[in-house]
Every structure is written in C-alpha cells, then in structure tokens.
C-alpha cells in the first residue's frame, strides 16, 4: 500500500496534463468547463485532435490505435481529460462499438470501420433500447429477416442519444424469433442514410434535443454487416455494457463542476450551511475517486470489477447533488433558463435548472440505479 504515484505514473500524468491543454482548443475546453453545449463540430474537432496524438482510444488494441497503458494510466488519462475540460471521446465510438468490432468483428469490418471510428469520421449511434424494452433489454422486438444475402430490418429504437448526428448505428435486432429471447438477438451495423431509416427527435424536459427515436421500415442491410455470429448479439451487448472499468463514474467532471461553483458562488460561500454542503460533497467525491482508483487497481484480466456498480450508482447521485446545489445557489436567477445571452443573469445561474433537469437522466440511462442495486445485491452480496 502506498499513496504516491510511481515516478513513471507521475511523469505520465504530467504528460497528459500538458497534452490535453495543448492539443484541444481553449474555446472547446471553456465550453465544457462552463457547462455549455458542444456543437457536433466541436466534438469532432476535439476527438480528431486527440486521435492525432494517440489520445482518443488508448484502451483499444495497439494495432488499431490503442496504447499499452496500465489501468491506472487509463484512469489518469480519463481524469486529466475531464479536469482540463476536454470532451471525452464519443462513447459510442471509443467505448462501445470500437472495442466490440476489435473483439468480435471480421478482419474486413475492422479495416473498414476502426480507423474511421477512432477518428470520428464515422459518428456512431446506439440502437439498443425500445419503447417496451428499457431495463428489460432482452425483450426487444426489432426484427431482421434474412432475404438473400441481406437482412431486412423493421422496428423502432428509442433513447438514441445524439442520433441526429449519427452516420451509422449499431443495433440489436431479433434474427430468430423461435428461440429463448436472449438467444435470438444479433448485432447489425446499419448505415443511417439507408432508405427506410428515420430519426425523430425527442424533446427532453431541459429543452434540449439529445435523444431520438429511430424507425426502421424494410431497411436492407448487407449480410457482412452482422457482427460476430447470428444469435451472438446478447453476448456482444453484455461485453459492450460491461467493457469499461475506467470512467464509469464522472468523477473528474463532477469535481470540476463543484470547483467552478465554489468560484462563482461569491458571497454565498460565506454562508455556513453552503460551506457545509460543499464540504460534504467534496468528501463524498473524494471517496468516490478513491474507490475508482481501488477498482482500477484491483481489476485484472479484462473482467469488470463488480464494484463498478458502486461507482455508477454513487457517481450519478453526486453528479445530481452538485447540480442541486447549483440550482439552490442560483435562486431566482435560475428562472432565466431560456433567456438569451444578453440576459442580465449570470450564465451559470441560467444553466442551473436545465442542467439539474437534464442530469436526472444520469440515474436512468445506461443501467438505472435500480439495476445497479440489483447487480450489487445479486452479484456481490449473493442475495
């Protein structure tokens, strides 16, 4: 047991710190640090800049642009990125479909997709959830029926985050309705410009357009765009969802948000009740960060550490709690949430309510906190 980073890791961290601030434009990083919305172009620009330096997909196999880093180094990479306000590389590309294609894809698929995926030349969307298959993903109903070499896809996906920007979508479809529900599922890669694909926006309570419905009507998908074997979709999905040990909880970003709030809160920081709330949150965030480090230190052989659920659960709670504090500090100024930039109210205060509302999703999407509790009670506690 020891607290200090090794000489190597200290140098690594310094290198990351330096690289992130020099690689990604200040304008983009300020946008992240102030909690404003990034444009598609900003996200693409940032990821390409990272990719050029080998910093976009370090957890991929080395031959496809990955770095042979330790888990701790990946953790440091991830934390320093958030600390610098660098947008995390698009999760659908970097954390989800990239590792899946690298693991399960054909050589042809790898060559065709991986470089463009790392460089965000292709923007991937995720087609998993359906209106009647949320937490119970395996009950999905979108079908793909064989027709010659092609698959013909029909159905509806929902909660497709940033689907409006998507070039391609990786999709779970039912290819065999006869077998037990998990067994009949496959993963298809679908070009979103194909005839019959329609993306419809879903407006969220914060006024943002962040998620979408994606409809498939007789969409023809060439057979070589099925990943792995037919019926292997559930296995692939579990790999994809359990793939990440690093960055499960947004520790760095939440710490950053709290620090920014302290700096902007002005006189309110003289209030003992505010100070206590901040101190309590800082302590909870420290515990979260240390737990992330423990998980990183203990995970080995690519298996996700079961305590990942602890990180996800507490991480979203704290992210939400910081947004609650921001809203309470904003007070009446928070009413100006849809005012234009010439508003006399400060920007952080105007963003407080939409951010608070938007972050309610954190405990729902990507495995709700109820699912995380179930994982903990079953997998870890054996209940």
């Amino acid at each position, binding site marked *: 047991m020891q607290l200090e980073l090794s000489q190597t890791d200290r140098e690594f961290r310094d290198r990351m710190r330096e690289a992130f601030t020099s690689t990604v434009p200040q304008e983009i990083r300020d946008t992240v640090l102030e909690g404003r919305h990034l444009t598609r172009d900003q996200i693409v620009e940032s990821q390409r800049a990272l990719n050029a330096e080998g910093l976009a997909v370090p957890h991929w196999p080395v031959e496809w642009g990955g770095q042979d880093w330790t888990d701790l180094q990946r953790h440091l990479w991830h934390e320093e990125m958030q600390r610098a306000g660098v947008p995390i590389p698009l999760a659908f590309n970097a954390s989800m479909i990239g590792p899946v294609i690298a693991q399960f894809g054909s050589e042809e698929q790898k060559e065709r997709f991986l470089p463009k995926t790392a460089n965000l030349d292709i923007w991937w969307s995720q087609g998993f959830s359906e209106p009647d298959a949320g937490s119970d993903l395996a009950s999905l109903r979108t079908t793909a029926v064989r027709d010659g070499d092609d698959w013909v896809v029909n159905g509806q996906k929902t909660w497709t985050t940033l689907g409006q920007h998507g070039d391609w979508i990786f999709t779970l479809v039912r290819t065999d309705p006869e077998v037990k529900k998990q067994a009949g599922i496959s993963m298809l890669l679908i070009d979103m410009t194909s005839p019959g694909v329609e993306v419809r926006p879903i407006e*969220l309570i*914060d006024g943002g357009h962040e998620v979408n419905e994606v409809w498939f009507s007789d969409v023809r998908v060439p057979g070589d765009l099925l990943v792995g074997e037919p019926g292997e979709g559930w296995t692939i999905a579990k790999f994809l969802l359990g793939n990440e040990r690093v960055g499960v909880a947004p520790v760095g970003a939440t710490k950053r948000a709290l620090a920014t709030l302290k700096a902007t809160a002005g006189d309110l920081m003289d209030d003992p009740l505010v100070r206590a709330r901040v101190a309590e949150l800082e302590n909870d965030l420290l515990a979260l960060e240390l737990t992330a480090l423990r998980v990183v230190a203990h995970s080995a052989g690519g298996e996700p550490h079961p305590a990942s659920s602890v990180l996800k659960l507490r991480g979203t709670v704290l992210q939400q709690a910081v947004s609650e504090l921001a809203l309470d500090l904003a007070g*009446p100024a928070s009413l100006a949430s849809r005012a234009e930039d*010439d508003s006399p*109210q400060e920007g952080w205060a105007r963003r407080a309510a939409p951010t608070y509302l938007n972050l309610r999703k954190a405990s729902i999407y990507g495995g709700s906190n109820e699912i995380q509790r179930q994982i903990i009670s079953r997998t870890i506690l054996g209940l």
Partner: protein
Amino acid sequence: MDFTYDDEQQALREAVRGLLKQTYGDHEARRQAVASDDGFDRALWGRLAEMGVLGLPFSEDDGGVGAGPVEIGIVCQELGRVLAPEPYLASVVHAGGLVAAVGTPEQKADLLGRLSSGEIVLAAADTSPGGRWTSRADGVRASLDGNAWTLDGVADPVVGGEVADQFVVTAALPDDGGTGVFVVAADAVSRTGYAAADLTRAASVTFDGSAATPLGEPGRDLSESIATISDLTRIMGANQALGVMQSQVRATTDYLKSRKQFGVTLNTFQALTFRAADMYVELELAHSMVDWATMTIAGGDRDVVADAADRVGLAVARAGRHIGQEAIQLHGGIGMTAEYAVGVGTAHLEVLDQWLGNAHHHLTRLSARVTDHELVEAV
C-alpha cells in the same frame, strides 16, 4: 380546528377543476399553450375572469368577490394539478396582492377591477438580477422631480412580465427612504421575455427614467407590506406545488400499475412500491403544512404568516424535490421527455421554489429564530 372544506369550497374546486380539465385535460394542450405567443391560454383566462376566479382575493368594492385564503389556495392547487401556465400567482396573488395591500381606494378600484375582469394583466417586479428574496428593493431606484416619479434599474425575473400591461414595481426611495411600490405602464419600460425551465414565462424589465405612479401615500416605506405579500404568495405557491405533487404521485402510481418490464407490471417490484409509499408520506405531510399555512392567513398576524410561509416553504421545497425526482426516476426514460407531464411537473416545482423561496432560504430564516421559542405551536 377543522381541516375540511365546506360545500361552497368543494363546489369552487369542482368548477375550477372542470374548467381546467376542458383546457388542459391533455398535457399536449399545455404544450401548445406555452408555445403560443402569450405563453398561456387567453380564452381560459377570460373564463376564469367570468367565474370570478381572478377577482377572488379582492373586495367587492374593488371589483372582486372577497373570498378568503382557503378559496385562493383551492384555485392554486387546481392550477398546479394540470401545470397551468396562466400567471395567476404572479398577476392576481402577487401583483394584485400588492395593489390591494398598499393602493389607495381609487387605485384599488381601478387596477383590481380591471385585473378581476381580465382586462389587464399585472406583474410584480421586485427582484434584481442575482437578487435573493428580499423586501428591500435593490435593483430599481425611484426619483422624484417635482411631482413626477421616475424609475431606473432592472428587475429580473419578473414572472408574468412578458404579457403584463402594468408593472407593480418595488423601488428604493430617495435618500434611503426605504422601499416604495409603483405602478408603471408596459409602454414605459423595455422588456425581454423568456421561458423558465417549466416553460412558463418571465421577463427581464429595464426601467430607464420610466414614468411611475406611487401606490398609496407617496414616499412611504412599504417594505413590511411587501414582505407580507411575498409571504402570502409563498403560501399560495405552496398550494400550487401541492397540486403538482398530487398529480405526480398519482401519475407514478398509475405508471407502476400499468408499465411492464420483465413480463410483469412494475408494482411487482417491492423496491419500487416502497419508494412510491415514501412519496406518499412526503405528500401527505406537505399537504398538512399547506392547509395549516393557508389557514394562518385568516388570523391576520404578519409575524404568524411570515413564520408559516417559511415553514410551508421549507416543507414543499423538500417534499417537491423528493417527489419530483422520484417521479422521474420511477418512470424511467419517459419521465425525461417534454411530451410527458411528469418531468415538466418536476421543472414546475423547482421554478416555484426558486422564484418564491427555496429550502435553503427558508431554513436559514427558521434557523435564525430557532432559539426564540421553546416549542413550535401548531394551534
């Protein structure tokens, strides 16, 4: 000591509920109303005037119907149930309340009569940018030149200010003379409207040598009355929040009974039903506080009402946050969408609290008084 509504009060509730159901029975109608230019339904506003609802708090001499706080509370609860975007709290309760409290008989008859009939909309401008719940004006200054008063400064947020015909403005009097209340015509100001997170409207209002008429005796410090009307508005805002919370608990319960996951309805999962039970507990406790605070108004004691406003404000802020968050969480993804009422209700609860006083504000005030009494007496 009686927590029950009499027959007339029940009839009022049913009439208002019926009318609101016609307009906002479907959440889609609310979405359209907030997307319209006015941000609310003018036709409904007219019908509320016809029913006497807009004149409920004001005396018959002033063109109102002279009802009591319980009746106004009922209206606010019903507005909350359907998330009605009509500026009732802002225009009738708050701005109208200020006029009724400090206006001369002529001013009251004029302004409150036209407010009650739906002819004009008022808005209270009492908050400066970045300001936090004070009865001492700090963003707008009044000046006297001869007999002519003018105002300078910015008020923001002014809830209902985008559609107001007249503003009821709190402004710092010359020579540290306290805070006065003025009426300013809409064409004497510049304003920029915007929507809050719940899509109800407010405005940033700039006074730049704007001609103003003092309400009541010119030049008097009215901060006590201003504070009392804010307290009354807080209590009525709590009534509105109660209506929202009731709808959210009902919607969540219905959803748990109907939504299927893993082949069964969600109410099969005990962890979820227990959380619904906790929502109900919060709701009922807040309900008691709302009824109680509303009843304290009739006693007419400023200090009692101020205390009740803090107590009910803290209670609905805590309950509203709990219920609002759980309503979304138990709905899952659909609770995040604008087309579904439950998430918008959560936004509405936050807007009410941040506008009228959040938990931190009320707790701070209650903490300051905590050693002034031995026990808190309910009756």
